[in-house]
């Protein structure tokens, strides 16, 4: 192949390989990327502005739309920030239910990740399987909350309603099924020599730079750094549950894939534990009339762990019915922009979409 002058390639916004509505502008020489620029803003809905115009409870319709593949961490983080401002207690049972919802959300997001990671590598069978099986998890959500994708289930002071009748059995059955299917996915994806060849040594995040670059979530754990909000700063009942935070070494796509592969199993184990240990009782510490509900003035920073990494909410109240300022720091904000721009340099153009998927780039979270 002739190595000639640089060509500019636009991966996105309309491109089958892009992980949502964003654009990666790459300069390529032959097949190698020499410069990458992430352009965002195609999904900017001005959420932070709109929340200033909604009251504390109305914000929840907007919150869950911050990151579409995994809306629940956003709700939980905001609810926790508001609870911190207000000093509101959460009933025990609600804490367990919240953890369960979070892990279910993680699990369904992993299923989407399986599809993205294998689909960007050209293995469509796995994507079809996992997205199809994801419907069973969405069924659980539908039973629990009434919604498939957007739930608005976690509120300040607890969760919106208790588990429906027979939910526990159904959830356990689904977990058994998903666990069985995960083994099959592993056979198809991780035992495949071609996937190994493609994933190893590609898209490396250097371990010594990872923290400084602001890498969070699975990419950071893929560098061998055991960092997870669930153990760093245990929220809800995570300190009472037994789970591992898997790490892997190398910082490449393969390491990130390994981390996620084990995390999916950890999620199943956590959901089982939660369902077993869940106490009886109230699930909702009632808030006052939402239209007149005033939250005391102050500033609070809450964070939780999503599939892509830590999600942080900086909530400022001036003592009125409306939030003064809600700033969302999604994991993709650093993972998806600066870090991606750095690790894409020197890669093959065939791997761009592959790396974007492994970094968990979620554009709506970047531009909000």
């Amino acid at each position: 192949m002739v190595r000639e002058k640089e060509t500019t390639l636009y991966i996105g916004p309309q491109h089958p390989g892009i992980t949502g509505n964003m654009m990666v502008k790459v300069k390529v020489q032959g097949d190698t990327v020499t410069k990458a620029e992430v352009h965002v803003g195609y999904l900017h809905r001005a959420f932070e502005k709109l929340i200033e115009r909604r009251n504390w409870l109305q914000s929840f319709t907007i919150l869950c739309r911050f990151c579409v593949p995994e809306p629940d961490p956003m709700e939980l983080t905001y609810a926790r920030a508001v609870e911190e401002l207000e000093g509101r207690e959460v009933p025990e049972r609600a804490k367990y239910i919240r953890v369960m919802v979070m892990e279910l959300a993680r699990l369904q997001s992993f299923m989407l990740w399986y599809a993205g990671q294998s689909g960007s590598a050209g293995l469509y069978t796995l994507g079809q399987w996992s997205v199809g099986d994801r419907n069973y998890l969405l069924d659980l959500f539908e039973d629990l909350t009434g919604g498939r994708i957007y739930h608005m289930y976690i509120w300040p002071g607890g969760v919106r309603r208790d588990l429906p009748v027979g939910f526990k059995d159904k959830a356990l059955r689904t977990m058994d099924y998903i666990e069985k299917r995960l083994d099959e996915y592993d056979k198809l994806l991780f035992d495949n020599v071609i996937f190994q060849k493609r994933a190893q040594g590609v898209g490396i995040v250097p371990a010594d730079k990872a923290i400084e670059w602001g890498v969070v979530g699975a990419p950071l754990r893929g560098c061998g750094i055991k960092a997870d909000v669930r153990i760093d700063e245990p929220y809800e009942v995570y300190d009472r549950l037994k789970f591992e935070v898997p790490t892997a070494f190398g910082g490449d796509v393969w390491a990130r894939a390994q981390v996620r592969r084990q995390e999916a199993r950890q999620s199943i184990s956590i959901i089982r534990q939660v369902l077993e240990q869940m106490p009886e009782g109230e699930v909702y510490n009632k808030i006052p009339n939402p239209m007149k509900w005033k939250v005391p003035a102050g500033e609070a920073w809450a964070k939780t762990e999503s599939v892509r990494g830590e999600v942080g909410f900086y909530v400022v109240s001036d003592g009125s019915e409306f939030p003064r300022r809600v700033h969302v720091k999604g994991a993709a904000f650093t993972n998806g922009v600066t870090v991606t721009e750095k690790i894409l340099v020197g890669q093959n153009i065939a791997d761009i979409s592959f790396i974007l998927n492994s970094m968990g780039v979620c554009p709506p979270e970047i531009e909000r």
Partner: protein
Amino acid sequence: MLEQEQALLSQVTSAFPVKGKVMRNRRVEVWAESTTVSSILMYVKNQMGYQHLNHITCIDRIEDTKFQLVYTVFSHQTKMTLFVKTFIDRNAPVMDNIDHIWDQANTYERELREMYGIQFPGLVGAQEFILEDWDEMPPMRRDFKTEEYSEKTFSSLPGRENTQDVRETISTRSGEEIPDFAKKYSRD
């Protein structure tokens, strides 16, 4: 109780002329002059292991004509979060550029420049980060009225205005009267 947090606070306050307090466990805030923020951040990053920049955000304190900037840093060793907060003038917002300390600060600062109009001298990168061809006031400022702008720019089709009662449209098109019992539910 909270010894670690107190130690962190005293370490920062002894090195710099700043006020601060422990917010709760694992949360410490310090209030600094805008000119010392970058040196505080440099210090906590290099000397104290606060290597992870969580975020940079801005709060529009329009009643005091000030912008409040919040820099949040996190240490993976002590698992504590430090907030460095400062005020800058809202009418001429200029802040030190810290993308030599953290590369990813560039993204946050570009966003703040676009959304609040805060200038960071020496900041590289395209002027437009999220918005495109924006020629109004920076939109995240409190005095930017988003609903008015939306109504003006994205007006509805004639006959489908937002505030219009749908039943009136139906009744004029079909020539039917709105029944009396339904009239009491109309908007005016």
